[in-house]
């Protein structure tokens, strides 16, 4: 039973991560089409950067302590990337250069998005799997 709840929790965290990334992408797209000025866009994105990093870190850690080392391993590259960005102090979007970095920022987030979706599907699979297993045990 505990395993199923764990998977549900992971699932929710992944969905919230996806939501954060999508939100950031929307801000960037709005900026590109001139619906929003760079100041607002940058501050909205930057507001969501640390929550994203923390959620992802916690997720990775939870995978580990719940014994899903394979999932944890899958998330490590993402975590590593975030940590290096943070260490280099490049995790925040730079208002002054935002237009020059727009393409890179978008590419980076699209990549993250794909990565998360991939993990999400695996998580879903495990969730369903464990749910089925529970049922089998229940009988």
């Amino acid at each position, binding site marked *: 039973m505990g395993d199923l709840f764990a998977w549900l929790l992971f699932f929710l965290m992944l969905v919230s991560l996806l939501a954060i990334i999508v939100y950031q992408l929307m801000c960037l797209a709005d900026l590109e089409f*001139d619906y929003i*000025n*760079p100041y607002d866009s940058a501050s909205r994105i930057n507001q969501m950067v640390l929550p994203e990093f923390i959620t992802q870190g916690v997720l990775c850690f939870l995978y580990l302590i719940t014994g899903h080392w394979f999932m944890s391993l899958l998330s490590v590259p993402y975590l590593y990337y975030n940590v290096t960005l943070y260490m280099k102090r490049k995790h*925040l979007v730079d*208002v*002054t250069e*935002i*237009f*020059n970095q727009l393409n890179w920022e978008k590419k980076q987030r699209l990549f993250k998005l794909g990565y998360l979706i991939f993990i999400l599907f695996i998580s879903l699979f495990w969730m369903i799997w464990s749910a089925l297993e529970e049922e089998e045990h229940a009988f």
Partner: protein
Amino acid sequence: MKTTGTENADRANFPQRPAASPFTAASQSTTPFLSSGPVVGSEAFAFRPAPPNAPQTTPSAPQTTRPYLSSGLMVGSEASGFRPTQPVRYNDPSIPRPPSSFVPPPTGTLQHHPTPQFFSTAQAPPPRTSPGQPVFPPPIRAPAGHVPSPPVYLHSQPQISSGQMGSPPQSINYVPSGRSVPPSSSDSLFSAPRSTLQPLQSAFPGYSSKSPNAVTQPPPVQSAPVFTHQGGYGPPPPATSTPFLAHQRGYVPPPPVAAPPAFYSREQMQHQGSGLPMGAVQGLTEDFSSLSLASVPGSLDPGLDSKVLPRPLDGDVEPKSFAEMYPLNCNSRYLRLTTSAIPNSQSLTSRWHLPLGAVVCPLAEAPEGEEVPIVNFATTGIIRCRRCRTYVNPYMTFTDGGRKFRCNICALLNDVPGDYFAQLDANGRRIDLNERPELTKGTVEFIAPAEYMVRPPMPPLYFFVIDVSISAVRSGMLEVVAQTIKSCLDRLPGFPRTQIGFITFDSSIHFYNMKSSLTQPQMMVVTDLDDIFVPLPDDLLVNLSESRSVVDVFLDSLPSMFQDNVNMESAFGPAIKAAFMVMNQLGGKMLIFQNTLPSLGVGRLRLRGDDLRVYGTDKEHTLRIPEDPFYKQMAADCTKYQIAVNVYALSDKYTDIASLGTLAKYTGGQIYYYPSFQSSIHKEKLRHELARDLTRETAWESVLRIRCGKGVRFTTYHGNFMLRSTDLIALPAVDCDKAYAMQMSLEETLLTTQTVYFQVALLYTSSSGERRIRVHTAAAPVVSELGEMYRQADTGAIISLFCRLAIEKTLSYKLEEARSSIQQRIVKAFREYRNLYAVQHRLGGRMIYPESLKFLPLYGLALCKSIPLRGGYADAQLDERCAAGHTMMALPVKNLLKLLYPNLVRVDEYLGKASSKPDELNISRLPVTAESLDSRGLYIYDDGLRFVIWFGKMLPPDIAMNLLGEDFATDFSRVILSERDSEMSRKLMEILKKFREIDPSYYQMNHLVRQGEQPREGFFLLTNLIEDQVGGMNGYIDWIQQIHRQVQQNA
């Protein structure tokens, strides 16, 4: 020459019409071409004697011709390079006489025998092998003389050939091309080539003398030489002569010679490149310039005479032809395209390795008589295209009896507002055209109505943030600044609306209440740096005309107020924040005077940049970017509230310009850097530049956008500003000394339009409180030929973009990488260009480049040696690098080119002359190399930012005495050049003044340097002689050779 009667006959034909007739004649002989191939032999030898022959052998010759041509051209030049043996032949063949003998047979024989011809040629030559006679030029000319049509090189050559050699065969070669192309066209083409060539020729002389061997042809031959080109192709005998021209010269010796190459190139271009039918080809004139780098056999000489290298001694020469083609375009001082021929496809763009873009200087100062017309559309509103928002301009066409106009950028048909309607005349032009500057001028200014304002136009606002710590007082900065501001109060733009305010700071922030009812300013001190607040809601910022007396009192007392200050701290960040809080209601210009490293509060910085080990590592670039994110954030906020920041850095120690400069960079401001400021030395410079900053015409709260036709888009922008949206440049303040660069890309794989239009629009508030739009419009043709792009290239704009790209690169990469990227792009561009011609021309030892880009390598070298990019740790102080980088990011093209390749002039002779007046001052610029310096002379080096006055060791002492009085023997670092009571001194000051007037944007300070006085001489002058090899950086010759080598690799 001796040419046979037949020849003469040919000539006759030629004279009539140089090109066509000769050719035709030739054409017959064409077959001869083949033969000519042989001829070529002599020259051809160099190239591809055999192959040509074979192909040529066939009567079809005309078509084959192309190859020949190329070869022919090449021949001259390369022959020597390629196959040494051949050259020998040349000499022999060069002899004209043999040709004559050949001649008769030529046409007939030639045709047949490519091979035989060879022999014949070969044989013939030997006999004649007259001693190598260096005199090509004369020969050439002579032929020209014979031929009536000499002007047209092509023609002339062909003609000659025919006449002399039976050159007919040669002519034949040409013929094919000639035929296909209408004569007239060919002529025009030629003429063009000539002009380009000529410059080269001048260069040659030196060269030719060097390599007499090469030029082995006897005078008679001369005529032959002409042929040679042709000969290269068809007629053997003539051919021989031809070869020499090019080859021997190394370059293209005389104009005529040069012409042939041009010819070929064109033809080749047409044929090969475009694959167009020959006829179509006509239009494609192609010229190139070349430098011979092949060493002369048996000499150690590198094969390159430094005297022949191209140098921009006439300053920046803008491409003229383009302006003539589109007289309705705005002047090039406002907008310069890197190439005035826009590529029509992405594949073509990808072969253009130079930047594709524009440099815009929207407010460039117009000379008297060319002021920008101001148009007020009070009744109709501003006429714009309703879809793409393009402003009305001369390229819009009116149709439907004047009721509609078609937008030139998006081709939409718009209605003409009733009040703007005018009938069209018989030519379809509006009858009121002459009263409408917006329809006749490329640059106009519209007065913008209320819908262009988000708030009432702001008044000009100047806010001063002044460091009053001990070093500011000691260096005398405070006094100079106070005096200068005071003297400029009457000249500040925008009277009577101008607003002004002051803050001073050391370890605390001092505000000044300048309310007009006070008799003297009230000072308020805020010491809480963590939580800055503004002690008074208003009156910190006052109207200058109302509070003038208070401001005067304040400026008078400022130096004395702090003269005993011993505070060494600097709360720079908090002071800026405070100023920002005072200003953010209105915006305006913030001038910061900073004397020490910010040490307190937010934005404090630490010493860095003295760490030698960081250089050469991947962390090197971090020294050049702001250390504290506070500065970027502050800059972004300032831009948002229309505040422009100008930073005056006057420290004698490290002040982290990389961080402070960020404030100016993103707000459209400027950095002024005075290392080790001492008022006794730098007073004049600071005074002049501050006064200029305060009094020049400034545009406030402005935005700039550049629009262009469908299919093209501006993608990246480079300069000191911040982007507000993808294509909108926000500029809190702009003035005439700022330029912005942008690069474009093609959105569609193929452009279908014939012309691309560009429109730069700057919406701003003038100092007088009017909202205005300045509009510059330009058109550029779309082309499908790479060669055309090269021909229309603008070195100045390209270098300006290179410079900005390279400096931006130093912010994230090593200096080394920024430099090599410049070099790589030049090499790639030249390689691509070479590929256009090399195959046909066999350019072996020659470096070829388009005439339009002849200075590109030199400026590229100068860029690599400029302060922001040069060397490594020891070659320039970090602050100096960053300051120069910020300055160069904003410089207009002309100033940048002058900074890169400074003026070096010798003045002692002028000073010595008795009665000359400054008006007669006609001093020629010298190459910027130590070789130009004569130890008996007095030289002025002027890069637009400073003067270095160099006293030679053997300079007559009376000159030094006259100029410097008693100081002439002392240490020059303490001597100040001032006017003394002597004619010479007055004259020198007159010259300096004149130089300064040319460009008042910066004040050139005098640095006196005595020859041999180290390290001063090295620091001020020797390291800046960019043509010399300095500290591990290449000299000009080495650089050219290096580029040439790289161009040939993988070519």
